[in-house]
């Protein structure tokens, strides 16, 4: 039986035929508030698993993906970790794709669509959240993948209650500093410790024994707390 992570990965891999020009890194402009670069679902999955086990994040509290792209991370949080999730995406076309992804994956991964809500809007503005009847202050965990990170960090520092967690997936091995937020953990160097075949390795989600090794690499998850 295929794992949910594998099903999720296969779903998004099967979408390669979608016009991908919109998914490439785009210049930040007034019209486009950022760029959509898909997050590594495997890395985020491993990080969430560790952070929940170690009590760093509240898996019952509302999770926000600020700049949710095609919805893969909220599909992961809602569909695999059963965390009530919210994704905000500025780009109309991409947010439409996210809605469709959640629609499809709620059946594939067997979760309630209400547990993964997509909103089209600007994640720095309160009225974006009000559209879904949510107050930004009620969000327990905010995730961002180097997409206007300073703006969302500033919003957390100014508005969120003490204890709110900011998870930043970042390609740089030196973490950023955000006023009002404290860096609590750095998850670096997701390594495969299992003895897998080459096929298993490239397959990406075989029987791998993945662990963060505290070694700087191209993908890192930084955990900040207000």
């Amino acid at each position, binding site marked *: 039986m295929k794992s949910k992570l594998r099903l999720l990965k296969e779903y998004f891999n099967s979408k390669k035929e979608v016009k991908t020009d919109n998914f490439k890194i785009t210049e930040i402009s007034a019209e486009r508030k950022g760029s959509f670069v898909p997050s590594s679902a495997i890395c985020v999955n491993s990080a969430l698993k560790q952070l929940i086990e170690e009590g760093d994040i509240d898996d019952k509290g509302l999770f926000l993906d600020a700049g949710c792209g095609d919805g893969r991370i909220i599909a992961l949080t809602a569909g695999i970790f059963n965390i009530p999730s919210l994704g905000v995406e500025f780009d109309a076309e991409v947010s439409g794709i996210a809605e469709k992804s959640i629609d499809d994956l709620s059946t594939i991964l067997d979760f309630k669509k209400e547990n993964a809500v997509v909103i089209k809007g600007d994640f720095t503005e309160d009225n974006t959240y009000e559209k879904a009847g949510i107050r930004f202050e009620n969000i327990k965990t905010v995730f961002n993948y180097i997409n206007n990170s300073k703006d969302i960090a500033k919003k957390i520092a100014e508005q969120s209650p003490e204890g709110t967690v900011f998870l930043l997936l970042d390609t740089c091995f030196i973490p950023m500093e955000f006023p009002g937020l404290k860096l609590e953990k750095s998850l670096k160097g997701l390594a495969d410790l299992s003895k897998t075949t080459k096929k298993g390795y490239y397959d*990406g989600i075989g029987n791998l024994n993945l662990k963060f090794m*505290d070694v700087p690499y191209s993908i890192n998850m930084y955990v900040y707390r207000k």
Partner: protein
Amino acid sequence: MEQFKLSREEFEKLSKKKQTEYYLEGLLKILQTKYKGSTIKYRNETTKMAGIKLEAVYFRIDEQGLLMIKHSGLENMLESRESGFSSAHESAKEVVKEYNLGFKAVYGKSIVTI
């Protein structure tokens, strides 16, 4: 992470070449001190290091403290594009020489000794 003294802002002001040197030198120190004798296979996060597109990086430090690096991107080239190997191999040698970190590196199936 004591090996990395620069702040993010200071690091981002460096040239790409200096950034790569800084990264590799710090990484080497960490691997030599923390993971001597272990083998770590890194996930297939596509990245660019010193101008070479990598699909994965394997690190291993043997009992003599020797660090070996294998780029699976180059290994793929070896297997699927024999004709493209020599230029890729030459590029790898240039990178290793350019960054001269004082260790032995394995690129693909060939060993480049520094």
